[in-house]
């Protein structure tokens, strides 16, 4: 719980600072800052993965089952998207296109912009940014109370980079590796999925 509160405060603090004090022209600088701070974080996560000697043996034991997890994440996400679409009276194709972004907000909004115009692209952008944020907020709690696998599934495509540190921190090195594979497989599929569903709109 303490971690979640720190996370909320830090993100909101950052958002307030940039909303009021940083000009739009600084966008590329901040993108570089994200890459730098993410590199630093993943460097330390790498050290903790590398120091664990049983890791690759454990992973070998898990074998191909590791592929089921991303599949479950994607199917769940698509179901959630369609149900939301029914409630909010949006088309199934648009809902599926938004849901299949799986947290990768830049790609889902860019693909949707020419198809749906600003409105659909903005919904996709916000939905997928929020998924990333929800991952930071929920992973510490879900990993502890439900299961590490469920915690990883929250992050969708982001579990190979942006949200990998928080998953590594909330679980252990073994699940960090599972998380990386999970995010990697989903990231490979997201462009195809979003394009496919966007073509049905």
């Amino acid at each position, binding site marked *: 719980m303490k971690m979640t509160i720190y996370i909320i405060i830090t993100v909101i603090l*950052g958002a307030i600072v940039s909303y009021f004090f940083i000009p739009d022209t600084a966008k590329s600088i901040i993108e570089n800052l994200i890459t730098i701070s993410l590199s630093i974080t993943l460097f330390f996560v790498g050290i*903790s993965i590398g120091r664990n000697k049983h890791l690759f043996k454990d992973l070998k034991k898990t074998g191909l089952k590791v592929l089921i997890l991303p599949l479950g994440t994607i199917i769940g996400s698509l179901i959630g998207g369609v149900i939301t679409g029914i409630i909010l009276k949006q088309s199934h194709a648009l809902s599926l296109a938004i849901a299949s972004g799986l947290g990768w907000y830049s790609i889902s909004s860019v693909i949707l912009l020419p198809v749906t115009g600003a409105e659909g692209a903005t919904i996709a952008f916000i939905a997928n940014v929020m998924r990333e944020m929800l991952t930071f907020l929920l992973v510490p709690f879900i990993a502890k109370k439900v299961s590490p696998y469920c915690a990883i599934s929250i992050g969708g495509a982001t579990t190979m980079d942006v949200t990998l540190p928080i998953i590594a921190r909330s679980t252990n090195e073994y699940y960090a590796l599972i998380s990386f594979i999970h995010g990697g497989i989903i990231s490979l599929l997201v462009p195809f999925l979003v394009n496919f569903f966007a073509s049905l709109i």
Partner: protein
Amino acid sequence: MWYIYISLCLGILIGVTNILPEKIVKHNDKFIIISIILLLFVMGLSIGLNKEIIRDFGLIGVTGIIYAVMCVLFSILVVYLLTSIKKRGDKK
């Protein structure tokens, strides 16, 4: 973006080979927390830069949030069901 994977691999390499002195490496967990906080602050900065979206957040924003919450909920649910089926299978 390739930098981030290079530093991850570099970290793994350092961890595997154990070339850093234990005195530094034992604080690794603290380094992870500090760098996550730094990362979150910078991510907050990048969110705050979407001034137009924040200014007229309204219905579109709420729609986006509902999609996010529902996708997350059902991802958790499906994975929960899959893993509990698997566990039951293992017991047999």
